[in-house]
């Protein structure tokens, strides 16, 4: 090797040294610039991402508000239960996980879980998906033992709704159902998680927002596989408001027992306040079944029952009022001066109008009947005569005073308005004029007229108290446990613009219905001194009047029998309770409905006396 070669090589080396130095500095600068970009320019952004990476916000479920009766007895509260959820974002293979779960949980529907899992939109995958609530002890033990095989599994203590009186006031309290996907999309349900329960009927539905309370927040630190490490409450939960109803659960249970094997409804009201003391609808259902995921067979049994146990007949059952309607006719005719208290009509068992015969229930006729007796013996012909002199729209006008033909506005969902016909309605819907004969049917509470048992109780309140209509009221007080604020719900009185002497007159006639011989409810009179009951029977036709030719009513198939009505109040001197009762296909009001009202009233008055 020559020295020259070495020299040439070394020259080359020192020449390239500068290039290499430049390369080192350039590479270093490039890394530093990138570092500056990531850590300083985008630092806050990545910091946020790292927070999101390991901080999960989990909710603390607010305790649902408690529902009380008027004497502070619990109608709905919460019991602790264990629930199993999975966190969708931590599950890679739902098939595998659900196959595992089926092994540990009895009767778990794997397809249902897979479907629900797949339906969760991506942005909600961090929210736990409920698999089962109210785990049994055995299930809990099995799950705990296999905890390691089930990533993303979450066992939580969770309140479960409990209804101590179950069937006895299931319609009133209502039930909860699982929220569905469409609802979850809506902004009003933004604070709900998949598989949350929402009130679906009754008070639970009507006061969902207040009962629900406000969920709290818990910040949980999780590691890369989603296991929870630490947690910290960042926002405590606020329990839902508790709601005190006007219901007297003791009376409610008693009436429910009376109605046990019957189909129908009973509504009891305080005639001085409009407060509902009891609201029974039979057949009933167990709302506790809905507190956890209801079994398919249970649901089918309830929803497929032809007697429709889910329906709250007190506010949703629409019946022709039958003769119970006559008090309105009487009051209207007196106020309009069509009759005086002493006006007499003659009943020969029917009234002929044109070619049609309008029959009285008593085919032999009542003879000479005045107003008081027309109510006492429920003479139909008397009211046909009134109807001949009163336009239908005038009747509708008076019906409105008593709250018929419109929703009462009680704080319960899905109330039905009932129906009071008018000439303009007939024209609009049938393109036909109103016929006098139709007024005759209306006058005895048949034809197009429909009322709910609740409405009918409210109609008799002014007759009990001397002329004031009260809006039916179910909630007495709403109290917020957080702020301690209590909101009393005011009674809403609407004095009726009819002379109080007429109310007095009809009131006395209603006393005769029950307490005099030949009164239609004489069999159900209350003999306890000072507790005398007044009231009115009613029989609502289900099918057109069969006529004399047909066999006796007892032999009719059940579903063609008439609905039996009775509305009564007591004690007569100063009534403290008004009760309306309808027994579907019960036959005559005096025999099927009045005894129930009588017993309920006695029971209530006894309990008042004791306290």
């Amino acid at each position, binding site marked *: 090797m020559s020295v020259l*070669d070495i020299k040439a*090589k070394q020259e080359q*080396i020192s020449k*390239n040294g500068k290039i290499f130095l430049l390369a*080192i500095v350039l590479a270093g600068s490039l890394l530093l610039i990138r*570092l500056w970009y*990531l850590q*300083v320019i985008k630092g*806050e952004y990545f910091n946020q991402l790292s927070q999101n990476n390991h901080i999960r916000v989990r909710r603390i479920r607010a305790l649902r508000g408690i529902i009380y009766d008027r004497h502070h007895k619990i109608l709905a509260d919460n019991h602790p239960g264990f629930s199993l959820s999975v966190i969708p974002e931590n599950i890679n293979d739902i098939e595998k996980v659900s196959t595992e779960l089926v092994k540990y949980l009895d009767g778990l529907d794997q397809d249902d879980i897979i479907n629900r899992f797949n339906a969760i939109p991506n942005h909600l995958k961090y929210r736990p998906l409920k698999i089962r609530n109210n785990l049994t002890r055995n299930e809990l033990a099995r799950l705990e033992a296999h905890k390691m095989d089930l990533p993303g599994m979450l066992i939580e203590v969770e309140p479960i709704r409990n209804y101590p009186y179950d069937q006895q006031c299931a319609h009133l309290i209502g039930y909860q159902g699982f929220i569905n996907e469409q609802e979850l999309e809506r902004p009003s349900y933004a604070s709900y998680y998949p598989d949350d329960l929402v009130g679906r009927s009754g008070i639970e539905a009507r006061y969902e927002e207040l009962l629900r309370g406000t969920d709290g927040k818990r910040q949980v630190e*999780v590691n890369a596989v989603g296991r929870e490490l630490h947690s910290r409450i960042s926002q405590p939960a606020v329990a839902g408001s508790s709601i005190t109803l006007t219901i007297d659960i003791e009376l409610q249970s008693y009436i429910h027992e009376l109605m046990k094997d019957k189909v129908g409804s009973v509504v009891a009201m305080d005639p001085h306040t409009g407060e509902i003391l009891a609201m029974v609808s039979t057949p009933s259902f167990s709302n506790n079944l809905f507190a956890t995921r209801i079994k398919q067979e249970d649901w089918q049994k309830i929803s497929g029952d032809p007697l429709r146990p889910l329906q709250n007949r007190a506010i949703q059952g629409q019946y022709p009022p039958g003769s119970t309607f006559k008090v309105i006719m009487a009051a209207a005719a007196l106020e309009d001066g069509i009759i005086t208290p002493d006006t007499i009509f003659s009943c020969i068992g029917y009234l002929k109008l044109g070619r049609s015969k309008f029959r009285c229930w008593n085919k032999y006729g009542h003879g000479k009947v005045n107003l008081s007796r027309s109510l006492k013996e429920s003479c139909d012909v008397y009211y046909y005569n009134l109807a001949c002199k009163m336009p239908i729209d005038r009747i509708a006008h008076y019906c409105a005073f008593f709250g018929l033909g419109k929703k009462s506005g009680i704080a319960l969902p899905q109330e039905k308005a009932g129906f009071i016909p008018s000439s303009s309605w007939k024209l609009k819907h049938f393109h036909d004029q109103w016929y006098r004969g139709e007024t005759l049917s209306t006058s005895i509470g048949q034809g197009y007229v429909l009322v709910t048992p609740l409405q009918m109780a409210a109609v008799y309140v002014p007759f009990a108290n001397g002329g004031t209509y009260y809006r039916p009221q179910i909630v007495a007080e709403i109290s917020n446990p957080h702020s301690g604020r209590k909101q009393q719900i005011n009674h809403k009185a609407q004095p009726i613009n009819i002379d109080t002497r007429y109310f007095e007159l009809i009131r006395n006639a209603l006393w005769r219905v029950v307490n005099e011989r030949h009164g239609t409810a004489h069999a159900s009179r209350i003999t306890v001194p000072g507790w005398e009951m007044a009231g009115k029977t009613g029989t609502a036709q289900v099918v057109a009047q069969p006529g004399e030719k047909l066999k006796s009513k007892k032999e009719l198939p059940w579903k063609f029998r008439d609905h039996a009505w009775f509305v009564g109040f007591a004690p007569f001197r100063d009534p403290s309770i008004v009760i309306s009762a309808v027994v579907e296909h019960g036959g005559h009001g005096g025999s099927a409905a009045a005894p129930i009202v009588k017993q309920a009233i006695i029971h209530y008055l006894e309990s008042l006396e004791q306290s």
Partner: protein
Amino acid sequence: MKQIGKKKISRLDFVILLLTVLLFSIGMLTIYSATYVPESPSWLSPISYRQLIWFTMGLVGMGLSFVIDYRYYLKISYLAYGLAILGLILVLVVGKSAMGAKRWLIIAGFTFQPSELTKLALIFALSRFFAERRLAPPYNLKELIIPFAMVGVPFILLLKQPDLGTAMLVALISCSIIFYAGLTRKTIAALFFAAMALAAAGWQFLHDYQKQRILTFLNPELDPQGSGYHIAQSKIAIGSGGLAGKGFLKGTQNLLHFLPEQHTDFIFSVYAEQWGFWGSSLLIILFMLFLIRSLIISQEAKDPFGSYLAIGIAAIFFWQVCINIGMVLGLMPVVGIPLPLISYGGTSLLTSMTLIGILLNIHFRKQYF
């Protein structure tokens, strides 16, 4: 004698030594925090402990490679190269496979990765070739057939394993030495285009997972759960460190195991999350100083062999640092290359320290005839 001893000691390159100690200390601290388990009974994790053992072995390797005059390496260069090639062939025939690649040999119970040796042997062989060349630089393409063949054989063998990362690394290091030795401008241009063509042609020889990595690198959204996830988490870790960092043992990305390979390939992310921009810049600057110092050693070497050898070593460090940090910063696709002196790993640490011993060796003997 005392005077001579003092003189000798002053010829030791304290700059490189100091930088080595600093870098290793940072590495130790980061491995400690990457493997830190809160409430653990032992204060030192087993991994940190093993790294310390490897360090003492590294010191021995460094001492040995320093004591032997580097000119002796010239003599064994080709032998080492031959052995490395033999090792690579053996690995393909009888090697232990892991994760679809054959990379390890088991000799007397020790697992051994011939690709590490290849890097060393190749820089020895290339340095000797250029040092002994009876031809003045710069060289043209025809004059470079032999060195390219020397690189080509192990390159193809490495691709066969397949170990794309090391193959590319070996190519880059070799090219650095060849470039340093001197090329004509024409050759540079020709090589540049040849490399481009080769890259395009080579695409179809890549394994699917390798293609996937490159595609993911170009578009991380392609695979947010796979290797894209690693890079995303690495960027989150580094970025969230901000200017000042989250503090020692306070890196949530690290502690909660969001980072993959946190004590090996992704250790820079662990460090950057804890120490922020200031700390990360310090680490990069330390590496750059280390590289510049190596370059100076190469420039000041007594003979061309020393220069080439030193630049080869510098190239090994340079490319590993750039590729590793570039990868965790999301500038490069994911390849399994550790960060020298910082990442956990016995082979890597031992190799690095042996190379530093050679650098000290070259520097020590620069004005010694």
